[in-house]
């Protein structure tokens, strides 16, 4: 299993008490599978993604990425895990303004200590994969919203992650471009055998994914169809 969340509980300070963002959530995502996580704003979707990305340590439960249990890892080891095994596609592209499209990808290889010449070639290949080979030397302000999001996706794939975490990839795009981005994510997941979690509030693209789950008040529930791989350990009502 490339990504496994088991009995995750996450709370935040809220005045004198604590607000439960995730309540006993479990999720397992094997390689080559796209799981969409839907839910209303504030339901805990982004918290789920942050926990899976090892950006937040949950109050309880375990997170396993590429076979490594993250609870005992220090900040340096977590950074190394994110660098080499987790690809993050942000809601907004979050591209670095000083870098060209190709360099946005090359920086990932640089973080991982890979050879610059090899990194440049791979970056161009990936940009070609997402249909941006002609825009490799353009900076973010020279790209459209859809192109930026595709660079964002390509950047997440640069270090060949086993887990791909995608946060609202279509929120800033129109329907047509949103569908294209979602199809691209699904195709890349199947081609590269990543375990992909796509957090979205847009249910119009769910037909493309393999499985769907819904978060409501911090609890995760599988949505039919297709079902099967999502753990049912979390209760569906509060």
């Amino acid at each position: 299993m490339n990504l496994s969340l088991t009995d995750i509980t996450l709370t935040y300070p809220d005045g004198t008490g604590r607000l439960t963002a995730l309540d006993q959530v479990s999720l397992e995502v094997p390689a080559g599978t796209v799981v969409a996580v839907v839910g209303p704003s504030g339901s805990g979707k982004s918290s789920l993604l942050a926990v899976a990305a090892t950006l937040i340590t949950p109050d309880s439960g375990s997170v396993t990425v590429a076979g490594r249990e993250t609870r005992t890892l220090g900040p340096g080891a977590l950074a190394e895990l994110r660098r080499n095994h987790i690809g993050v596609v942000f809601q907004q592209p979050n591209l670095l303004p000083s870098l060209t499209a190709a360099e946005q990808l090359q920086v990932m290889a640089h973080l991982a200590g890979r050879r610059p010449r090899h990194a440049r070639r791979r970056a161009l290949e990936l940009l070609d994969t997402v249909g941006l080979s002609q825009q490799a030397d353009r900076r973010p302000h020279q790209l459209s919203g859809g192109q930026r999001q595709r660079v964002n996706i390509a950047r997440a794939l640069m270090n060949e992650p086993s887990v791909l975490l995608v946060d609202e990839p279509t929120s800033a795009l129109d329907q047509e471009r949103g569908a294209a981005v979602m199809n691209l994510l699904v195709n890349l997941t199947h081609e590269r055998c990543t375990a992909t979690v796509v957090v979205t509030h847009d249910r119009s693209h769910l037909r493309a994914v393999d499985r769907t789950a819904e978060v409501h008040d911090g609890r995760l529930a599988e949505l039919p169809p297709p079902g099967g791989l999502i753990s049912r350990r979390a209760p569906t009502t509060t």
Partner: protein
Amino acid sequence: MFVACKDLRFARGRFALMGVVTTLIALLVGLLSGLTAGLGRENTQAITSLPADRLVFAAAPDGESVSFADSRLEKTTLTAWRSAPGVISADPLGIAMTRAEAGAVNRAVAAFGVTPGSPLAPDAKLDSRQAVLSQRAADELRLTVGDTFRLGARQLIVSGIAEGSMFSHTPVVWTSLDVWQPLASPRAVEVGRDDQAGDQATEADDPPVATVIALRVDSSASPDIGAVDRRLGTRTVTVEDSLAAIGSYTAENGSLQLMRGFLFLISALVIGAFFTVWTIQRSTDIAVLKALGASTGYLLRDAVGQAVVLLVLGTGVGTALAALAGVALGDTVPFVLEPATVLFPALTMTALGLLGAVLAVRRVTAVDPLTALGSAR
């Protein structure tokens, strides 16, 4: 340095502006350092070049600092120091600020009275009718060997011209002690319009034999200098420490060093302020990079690398301009162009600027990568 180099190129306007500021501060520091050293040399050159280990002053009353202007030593003191244990040589040195006249030219000079043939005396002949001029004094008075000039009440012949030597911003004229003595006593100068009368008056007033005594000691013999000082009412200091006894040097050097220190401080603060603002502006980028797996160490190296490039280039250009200015100024201003006056300030400024930058970019460690998930760019 991957992102750092791209940022330097992308935000070249901001970095160029900061580079110009760094260059100008480095130029100012370089010029001030060269000028400080040059002015210091014009104050102290004649003392620092003395072939002596220590200088003996008349002790100042009530613990005050010794001074060349106030020190007067008698013959008995000189004799006692010559016989003190561990003393290899003790030579009298008289110093008096006076004026020299050569035709229509009248210049302030520092008269250095020495015993002819002593280690303190220049090579050319000295006696009661001859003096040796420093090159600067000769140039200003337009004199050459064999010419005559008037020093106080005496008419003297130039017996030689020595390499440039300055004391308290005035060129040095070496005389014998008997020529110096009337210059050191105002009454002697007053009555000494006639050479013979001057000699008689100073003799009658029991004039000082020297301003200071230049000592060479046998350090292996561990001489108890302090005990001799207490017994004779003198104060002995190293040649280096004796520079504080030149009144103009202490005030002037102190002011210039204070200015230089403030420039170092300003450069550190300016660099620190720039990188504080720059780091705050980049906090979203830093959060994104952290979320993508960049370690804090990587990001700190990246940010400090930017500071190093900025400081090395800015300081390098500024220092090079200061050196060029020093060459261009030549002898018109007292400017010393040496590694100590050019490279040392540049290295100090770079180090302090880097310290300011490091303190500023520390906030990289506080950026939460989680903010990248909710940020928009």
